[in-house]
Every structure is written in structure tokens, then in C-alpha cells.
């Protein structure tokens, strides 16, 4: 596989993992505009451990995910006390606080960022992405997953039937945080570098947008979103390389993403992949005797 394709695949895998970090709370009805916070936590924890303490990759990644999950768990109690727009702003503020803290740990490089030697190539990154998708898909099919999705649709009726609002949200938020931490660990070891500047507000915005674009009704939406976000701008860049008259495509390749988001919000706000769509495409075993 060429170097270009393999780095593209690596980027895609990491984007997929981070997508599910946003999907988890979103499936419980919580919009997270601060996933960068969890990504930074995971990246600096994993990167710090592997470069300063020479921890092997696997435990470092695990530590990143656990650290991120732990912080998510602790902060969830505070954040879940807020509602609606205040919650969006709170997740946003959280990410900024994390960024601020990371900037002030000199051992981790401060504003210049952290460089790490250990490398996570495709054999690490791809299985992590695949594993994440499988895990989340399984989780959403359990009783707990049903509680989460019920909460998303109608909080008070879900509560009536015994779904515990706060507990379910805390777990969804925590799992999302842990996955984000894993994504961060993968990110820092794939690019051998992490800094606060490049993983900030815009980063969180992009991820939230491509997850919502894919759709949060089913487990496959974020996968689609990550695919679109990773591949379409690249395809446009390649096209402009091959055909010089299409040069404008290169500068504007993320514009296409923005336009797609706006159009989707206007015409199909549930996202591209919806449950109804899935039902229609997949053959169902069992009682579908009606046309």
C-alpha cells in the first residue's frame, strides 16, 4: 500500500474512533462541543507515558482511554446538571479548561506541543477503529443501549418505564470520554506529535458536525460521517491536482463539507443514515410479511 493511502487510512481510522466519542453522548441526547478535551487528555496521557516513562504502546493507549474516561465520569456530574444550550457551552468550556491545563505542564511541552517517538501504524490504528465500531454497535443493542436510545427520544416516558436518566447519561458520557481518550492516544502516536493549538475549538466543531451529518439514530451514522469528512476533501484535492483548472477545489475542499452540513440541516436534519433507511435496505428475518 502506498504511503499516501496508508496515511489516509490511518487518518480515517482515527476519525472513526473520535466520531464514536461524540456519538455516545449524542445518542443519549447530549451534544458535546468539546470532544477536543477528551482527545487532548488521552493524547497527553498516552504520549506522556510512552515518551517520558517509555511505557509500551498498548498500556499507554489504555491509560489514555482510562484517564479520559475517569475525567469524563467526574465532570459528568457537574455538566449533566446543566441543560440545553448551557450544556453545550459547558462541554465547550470543559475542553478549553483541559487545553489550558495541558498548556501549563512543562514536562508535556507546553505551547510547543509534545513529540513522541513511539509510532502507531495501521496494524494498531485500524483494529482500534474496527473494535470501537463493534463495541459501540454491541453496546447499543443491549438493554442499556435501549435505555440510551429511549432517553434520546422521550425523557419523561423513558423515566416512567424505569430508565434512570442521570445514571444512563453519566455512563454514556463516560464511555464517550474514554473512546475520545483512545482516539487521542492513537492520534499522538500516529503523527508523533500533539499540540493544543491544532486540537481546539475547530476540531471539536468538525467532529460534532460530521457525526450529526452521518446521523445519530443508528450506530452507522458516525461511520458515514467520518468517511465523508476524511475522504471527500481528499478526493477534491486529488481532483484539483489532476486537473489544474479545478484548482479552486483545493482551497475550498472543506467548504464542500460546510455546504453539505447546511443542506443536510435544511433537508434532512436526522442525518444521512436513519433507522428508517436501515430498515428499508437490510433484509429482515422474521415477520415482515407485508410489502
Amino acid at each position: 500500500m502506498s504511503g499516501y493511502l496508508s496515511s489516509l487510512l490511518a487518518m480515517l481510522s482515527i476519525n472513526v474512533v473520535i466520531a464514536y466519542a461524540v456519538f455516545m453522548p449524542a445518542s443519549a441526547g447530549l451534544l458535546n462541543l468539546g470532544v477536543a478535551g477528551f482527545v487532548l487528555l488521552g493524547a497527553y496521557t498516552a504520549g506522556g507515558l510512552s515518551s517520558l516513562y517509555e511505557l509500551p504502546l498498548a498500556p499507554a493507549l489504555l491509560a489514555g482511554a482510562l484517564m479520559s474516561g475517569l475525567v469524563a465520569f467526574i465532570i459528568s456530574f457537574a455538566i449533566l446538571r446543566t441543560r440545553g444550550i448551557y450544556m453545550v457551552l459547558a462541554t465547550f468550556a470543559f475542553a478549553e479548561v483541559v487545553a489550558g491545563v495541558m498548556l501549563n505542564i512543562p514536562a508535556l511541552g507546553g505551547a510547543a506541543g509534545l513529540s513522541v517517538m513511539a509510532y502507531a501504524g495501521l496494524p494498531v490504528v485500524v483494529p482500534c477503529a474496527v473494535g470501537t465500531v463493534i463495541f459501540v454497535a454491541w453496546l447499543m443493542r443491549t438493554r442499556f443501549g435501549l435505555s440510551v436510545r429511549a432517553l434520546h427520544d422521550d425523557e419523561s416516558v423513558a423515566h416512567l418505564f424505569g430508565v434512570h436518566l442521570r445514571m444512563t447519561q453519566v455512563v454514556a458520557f463516560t464511555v464517550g470520554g474514554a473512546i475520545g481518550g483512545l482516539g487521542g492516544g492513537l492520534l499522538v502516536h500516529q503523527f508523533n506529535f500533539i499540540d493544543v493549538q491544532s486540537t481546539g475549538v475547530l476540531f471539536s466543531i468538525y467532529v460534532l458536525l460530521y457525526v450529526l451529518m452521518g446521523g445519530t439514530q443508528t450506530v452507522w451514522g458516525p461511520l458515514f460521517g467520518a468517511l465523508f469528512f476524511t475522504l471527500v476533501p481528499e478526493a477534491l484535492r486529488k481532483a484539483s491536482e489532476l486537473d489544474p483548472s479545478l484548482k479552486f477545489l483545493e482551497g475550498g475542499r472543506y467548504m464542500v463539507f460546510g455546504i453539505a452540513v447546511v443542506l443536510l440541516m435544511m433537508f434532512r436534519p436526522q442525518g444521512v443514515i436513519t433507522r428508517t433507511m436501515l430498515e428499508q435496505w437490510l433484509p429482515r428475518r422474521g415477520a415482515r410479511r407485508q410489502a
Partner: protein
Amino acid sequence: MQLLQQIVNGLMLGGILAFVAVAFTLTIGMLNFLNFTIPALFMIAGMVTWALSSAGPHWLGLGWHWVPAAAVGIGAAVLASLLIERFTYRYMKTRFGDATEHALPLVSSLGFLIIFEHLAVSLWSSDPQRFELPFKITTLEIGGLMFGIPHLISLTLAIVLVAILKAVLERTRLGRALRGIAENPNASSLMGIEVQRIVPLVFVIAGALSAFAGILYAVSYGTVTPFMGDAIATDAIAGMVLGGLGNIWGAIAGGLLVGLVKVLAISTFGAEIEKIPVWGLLLLILIVKPTGLFGQTQLGKGKF
């Protein structure tokens, strides 16, 4: 003396932040809409003004005098703002009956932010561009303290504008109509208020505020980039929350406070620390007293 200068510096930065904070808080208070395109409007005004006023190979490099350039810059930002009104806010209302029930307008505004920022990148590249004014003196010295003139103008304008806005909102028919729309858009239109014609006014004002701030920023810091709005808007949002969502005097106070905290933190502890006090304070406020330090106005539905 050093401390006093830092306080002045903080208030100067706060002056620009206040402007943007008012734009945010106005849109949220009137329309229950967190408009994430405001940083882009800020940037559009700044970049268009720069582009027009400097002669060069770049797009719109016509080398105009900075005054008409600024006017066009503001016009461009206001036009962009109206675009958002049409395709984000109004569209959501007509399609879903209630723009405020969903996070859709927020997400759509994020989409527009991406569009505008990358449009700027494709037109002018993502490199920072130097913005130079024909006159050099941009600071004023009073009693041994340095005051930035653009910042002073920004602060003064912000105060004057907010005073005017408040007067309009509280004493005129238009103001009453606006407050009625903020409470209940459907009931308002049922009473004959032309919601469709008044709401764009809010977007025009917010766009103009952001545009002014963008130009003042460009003048005082001398640089423009397609992403110049991001950092400012982030801090302005902090100012908005501190001041209470929808509270336009609060937004000024909040913007000033954020500017102050930032500059004092940087001068005391160094540049890296600044995020923590601002955002830590903000997170605390959101959890403990989300109505802000000065209390918020009645929001439409308390949701998105």
C-alpha cells in the same frame, strides 16, 4: 503602575470582546439562537477591508482608501448575516415551525462558519496578512498610561450602541415587538407583528456589531487571517455567559471582565495560563449560576 497599565490593557481587549459579546447575546436573547457564524462575520469584515485597501495580486486587491474598504467590509458581513437569517433561522422556522426547539440552527450556523472560513482560505490563503493603516498613531497616552485608540473607540461605541439598543427595546414600538418575538414568535405574528420583517433587523445589527469589532481588531493588531474570529469569538462567548445570556449590558461587563482576567493572568503567570481562569470560571458559573453574574433576560424557550 505596571498593574494599572495591565488593567488598562485588559479593558482595552475587553472593549473589542464586549462588542462581539453583545452580538452573541443579542441573537440569543432575541431569537434563542447561539449564532456560531458571528466569528465568520467578524473575519469577513476584517479580511474584506484588508483585501480592498491593499493593492496586490490577491482577490479584491484594489488598493482603495481604507474608509470605503471598511464600508464594503461591513456591508459584506451584514449580507452574510442576512444569508444566515434566510437559510438557517427562517428556514428552520418555516420548515419545523419552531426554530428554537432544536439544535439545528446552531449546527447550521457551524456549517456556515466552515463555509465562510474556507471560502476565505480559498480566496486569500490561510496565511496571516498584514493590515496597515495610513496613520501610525494608534495609542493615546493619558497620565502615563497607554490607551489603544481603536480599543477606546470600540469600548465607547459598544457602550453607546447598547444604550441606544436598550432605549429602543424598552421605549419604542419596535422594541416591544422585538421583545414580544423573543417571548413567543407565534403569538407575536398572530397579533399582527411582522415577524418576518423584524427578525432580519436583529441579524443586521449582530452582523454590523461583529463587523465593527473585526475592523477595529484588524486595525489594532495589524493582522488578519481567515481564522481570526475563532479566538475572539470563544472569549466573547465566555463574556456573554458571564454577563448572562440575553443581557446586553451584562455582555459588555462580561467582555470587559474576560479581557481583564486574560491580561492580568498573562502578565502575572505567563501566557500559557490564560485559558484556565477564564474557562474555569465559566464552567463554574454554568454549573452553579447559569444565569450569569448579572442575571439573564427571559429567554424564549430556555432550550437551544
